[in-house]
């Protein structure tokens, strides 16, 4: 049973995001963001849109990585929103060593950074690379696959908002079917992005047999922190794919970013899981399953499925994708009882004997 620092049983309360409040948790288990010693790796003053999921995700990822590496970390960034909104010369929002080179080469640059650090005998410094879905699954994919294949010592984080949002919302290989983008417009007999295309990079990463692959969303930030922390405890190529809603591109309210991300997982449309050496080791079970329609309805990019006439056929095809995810990953498993073992977050267990901030595992 989890106890407070005074030995009292923890009475958990839940906030809207299902995160467990920090106040009553053992200090060692508190979130990175709750601590005053957090790195503020991506600090305030940047120019991201209101409600930007990528800014939120990057902040949590890098602060967790900074804590895990005790500040011994450098970052490599692909071109994209994250790079543009954070570093308009002469300003920068990065409080970590940060290098941006090109759109399609972040994994290869990270490979070189890791090789350079090794050659210089700086084995204590770790490398985190990051990019959007365009930079990761499309233009940078060859470099990413090369990095995986060589098992270069890099944690690569993809912030997936399902399109080229920085250039004005065009389709990428991660844009879901039926979604409206400026290059898959809501016109014609099959409005929006076509079915039967797109790349599932977490699974492709697993096929490279890399030590660690995980997906996460900005709806479950403790889970995201825990996965970053675990990834940072490993060496070799690690891949983290984070779903980050984009209010501009998705046509969602800025205040709904976390809610939309949660519906993506609760509907099964975006599976949240972990894999080691190509084998799924843990999944985040759906707690309150919702039809995919609830996820779609909040998003302007799917508005054409509801008006001028309702497209039940298309909604059913999207539901089928969610159903397949649920089956493939076993997302509909039982929800853990909260009062079991030392709890890091609702429905999750800290591994027995694990260090503070260590990985969280679903039961």
């Amino acid at each position: 049973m989890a106890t407070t620092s005074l030995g009292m049983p923890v009475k958990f309360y839940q906030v809207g995001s299902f995160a467990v409040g920090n106040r009553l948790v053992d200090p060692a288990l508190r979130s990175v963001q709750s601590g005053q010693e957090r790195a503020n790796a991506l600090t305030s003053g940047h120019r991201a849109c209101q409600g930007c999921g990528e800014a939120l995700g990057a902040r949590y990822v890098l602060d967790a990585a900074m804590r895990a590496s005790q500040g011994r970390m450098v970052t490599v960034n692909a071109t994209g929103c994250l790079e543009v909104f954070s570093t308009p010369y002469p300003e920068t929002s990065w409080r970590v060593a940060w290098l941006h080179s090109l759109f399609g080469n972040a994994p290869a640059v990270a490979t070189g950074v890791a090789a350079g650090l090794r050659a210089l005998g700086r084995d204590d410094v770790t490398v985190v690379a990051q990019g959007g879905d365009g930079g990761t699954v499309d233009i940078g994919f060859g470099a990413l696959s090369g990095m995986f294949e060589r098992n270069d010592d890099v944690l690569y984080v993809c912030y997936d908002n399902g399109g080229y949002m920085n250039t004005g919302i065009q389709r990428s290989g991660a844009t879901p079917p039926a979604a409206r983008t400026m290059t898959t417009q809501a016109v014609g007999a099959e409005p929006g992005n076509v079915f039967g295309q797109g790349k599932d990079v977490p699974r492709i990463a697993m096929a490279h047999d890399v030590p660690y692959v995980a997906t996460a969303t900005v709806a479950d930030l403790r889970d995201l922190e825990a996965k970053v922390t675990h990834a940072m405890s490993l060496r070799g190529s690690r891949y983290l794919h984070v779903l980050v809603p984009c209010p501009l591109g998705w046509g969602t309210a800025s205040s709904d970013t976390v809610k939309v991300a949660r519906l993506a997982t609760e509907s099964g449309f975006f599976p949240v899981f972990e894999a080691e050496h190509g084998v799924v080791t843990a999944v985040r079970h759906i707690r309150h399953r919702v039809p995919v329609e609830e996820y779609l309805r909040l998003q302007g990019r799917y508005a054409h499925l509801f008006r001028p006439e309702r497209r039940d056929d298309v909604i059913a095809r999207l539901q089928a994708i969610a159903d397949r995810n649920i089956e493939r990953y076993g997302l509909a498993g039982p929800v853990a009882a909260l009062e079991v073992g030392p709890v890091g977050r609702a429905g999750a267990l800290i591994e027995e004997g694990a260090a503070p901030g260590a990985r969280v595992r679903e039961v």
Partner: protein
Amino acid sequence: MLQQVEGSKAVARAVAACRPQVVCAYPISPQTHIVEEISRMVKAGELPGCEYVNVESEFAAMSGVIGSCAVGARSYTATASQGLLFMVEALYNVSGMGLPIVMTVANRAIGAPINIWNDHGDTMSQRDSGWLQLYAADNQEAADLHVQAFRIAEELSVPVMVCMDGFVLTHATEAVDVPDVGSVDAFLPPFVPRQVLDPDAPVSIGAMVGPEAFTEVRYLAHRRQLDALTVIPRVANEFAQHFGRTSGGLLHPYRTEGADLVVVALGSVLGTLQDVVDAQRSQGVAVGAVGLTSFRPFPYDAVRTALAGAHRVVVLERALAVGVGGIVAADVRTALVGTGVEQVTVVAGLGGRPITTASLGAMIGDAVAGRLPELTFLDLDHAVVDRELGRI
């Protein structure tokens, strides 16, 4: 010590003597022998402290050395032709960020039609990429230029391309005095980067720069290139003092004194050209040659001085600006503005076609007689082109 060695191996060993810390490379002919030899040395433990990374493309090769150079590791790669073009986006990135990477380009034609043989079309296409470009006349100079290139690159914080003719030099075995580690250590200090990616002093490298400062950034890059016009000859002089032989510099005049006609060229053709100049001189023809080592930066003043006494200049090009003609010729023309020196362009040796002493002798004869038109394609098979033109 002189050794009988293939050009690629001479370069590989010269690079190794410079103690590179990261080498990222991807195979492409005719460059491959260089990185094969370096990878062997790394694997055999002959190059301690060096990481060799087998990457999946030339774009990744250049991107990898961007990363390694940014953390302060001396970084090297090599490529040719299509490989150079595949890394173009990264090339501009390197020069924009002022990363002192050294790269060998084993000069090779660009397709289509696919052609693995030598010309300068690949590096000439990167004329404006912001890299310094030094052209080797022979394998001794190719080896020596790499040692100088690291000095120049790291002193100015600019990238340097050492260009050597594919096959003609890379695969030719001749006697080369390969610089050894001890001598290079005395000449080339350890790499101290101007800016470094370091968790102890975190900086943001590669920020977005808008209209308010972009011109200034480009201007400073321009100034660094101009500074190279001073640094290149100084480093060549210091090299001569350390190693007891002359290599590099901006250009090499050959028997230009009293020459009415001077042929300007780059790369391995200079050996052939000097033989032809000797033969012509022995017959009383007042001809000389200027070998251009530094094409970027272009040494306008040195070229004007070297050509000052000539009445006529032939720029012998191993590349072609389609629809225009010469590439080097345009810069030579700028250097000669106001001098009244006549200038013509001869495009030769494309896609590996040999440039023979006979053809050069005939070319010089025509030039002296004033019979060379503004643009000539040496040894062009007129029957073939006329037939094809007739079909259109």
